[in-house]
């Protein structure tokens, strides 16, 4: 199963992070990433640039596009990993090893797979697939 580790930091944690020696930060994160690579669990991962991007708000029609997120959004989403493990506990155990400090949080969320859509039998794509059920043969 795959999990996404979503890194969030409060503004204070971001400020504290910026005080740190960047090389030290890179080395710590590099060692963490390397450990997950060597263990064969790392599928993907990236950091998100610190400057605000854009927010597309679907409360309006057409959606309203603004710069952001800003200010009152204290919990900034600033990076992610996707890791593949045998259990959710193992994903949590990897998350605990991330070199982050106070104010930072890692959210561990399962990535959906094909088994998650069993309840959507009326969906046209699911129906399309159901049509194949009788097509039994060699791969």
């Amino acid at each position, binding site marked *: 199963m795959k999990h996404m580790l979503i890194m969030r930091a409060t503004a204070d944690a971001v400020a504290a992070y910026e005080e740190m020696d960047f090389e030290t930060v890179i080395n710590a994160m590099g060692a963490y990433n390397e450990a997950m690579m060597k263990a064969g669990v790392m599928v993907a991962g990236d950091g998100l640039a610190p400057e605000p991007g854009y927010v597309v708000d679907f409360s309006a029609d057409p959606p309203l596009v603004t710069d952001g997120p800003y200010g009152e959004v204290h919990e900034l989403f600033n990076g992610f990993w996707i890791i593949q493990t045998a259990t959710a506990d193992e994903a949590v155990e990897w998350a605990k090893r991330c070199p982050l400090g106070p104010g930072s949080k890692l959210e561990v969320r399962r990535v959906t797979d094909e088994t998650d859509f069993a309840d959507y039998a009326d969906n046209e794509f699911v129906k399309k697939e*159901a049509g194949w059920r009788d097509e039994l043969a060699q791969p």
Partner: protein
Amino acid sequence: MTPADAARAVDAVWRIEGARIVAALARMTGDLGFAEDVAQEAVAEALASWPENGIPANTGAWLTAVAKRRVIDAWRRRERLDKRHRAIAHDLAEAVEDEWEPIDDDLLRLVFTACHPALSRESQVALTLRVVGGLTTVEIARMLLVPVATVQARITRAKKTLAAAHVPFETPDPSEWRQRLDGVLSVVYLVFTEGYSATAGERWTRPDLADEALRLGRVLAGLLPREPATHALVALMELQRSRFAARESRTGAPILLADQDRSRWDQGQIARGRAALRRADAEAAARGQGRGAYALQAAIAECHCVAPSVEQTDWERIVVLYEALGRIAPSPVVELNRAVAVSMATGPATALAIVDDLAAAGELRGSPLLPSVRGELLARLGRAAEARAEFEEAASRTASAPQRALLEAKAAALD
């Protein structure tokens, strides 16, 4: 923390640290079976201690320290029993005082020892999943669809065999490196293929087993980054795994390549597979070598993965790749697959000649593969009566009910 929480935490830690802990202990003691036993005692102690005392800050070091104490205890007992071991035990006890630093070399020794040729294939698979994969016997039993007691028996037998054969905890000598590495890779690929098209159980694919093999493959590629074959095996597994979501119907039945919804293929996984194949090619080129069997199979899988449809697949290239594969790893199954590719690239008549040669040589006798391919080719050539007979023959040879139904339907459609 409840005992159940502790058990889950221990399993998670073990999965991450277990292989390195066992590897370090085996290096220290020179005995993989003993190392695994003391590591299990450390796990048992964690299960007893953690609910009361909480999870220690450095779980891996905690488990290793406990296991090392058990090793020294065992040595002391042994010393009393047999004075001749005293000097050896003394030296080893001193070595234990060294700072524990898990190193890749130990992990590599672990992999080669778990896949040692003295062991049966079943024992190699069980021991590798246990000590390298860090899976519990319950998890292994669930993945392999065998009783827990069977897995335990295979692991126990493996440890006894290693001890009886005095297998050293070492990587192989250069003279046997190639062969031993092939052995390790074939254990990993066997685990994968069982997940790719399961020979037992209700489902056609078993993603958890395939993913475990992929993880082991990635670990190997990390340990042996200069070996082309490790990257090639990862490439092959990534590319084959990318199609799982489209290969199986909701009822667990296989879906033909031609009928698969290619939008459901995992493009990220395909990209990783292609990158691994390029890495394998680069490492092979650096040694002045050509593609090995895994790289050729990965290249064939790549042709399928990048093609928008069966019609737009580069079948000429696939034919060339199968020819190369047939030269370095000749087998009737490869030859039959080449015939299928030839039928797509050139036409059924040329392909039929290849299949007829295989039949004349008495290959694949008893397997439904040959008559089912021959039936397809004859049908495309308009030789309906002969095609029907081949499909009926193939149907009589298969033990799989869905496959038999399909072959019988194909025969009936030719009436």
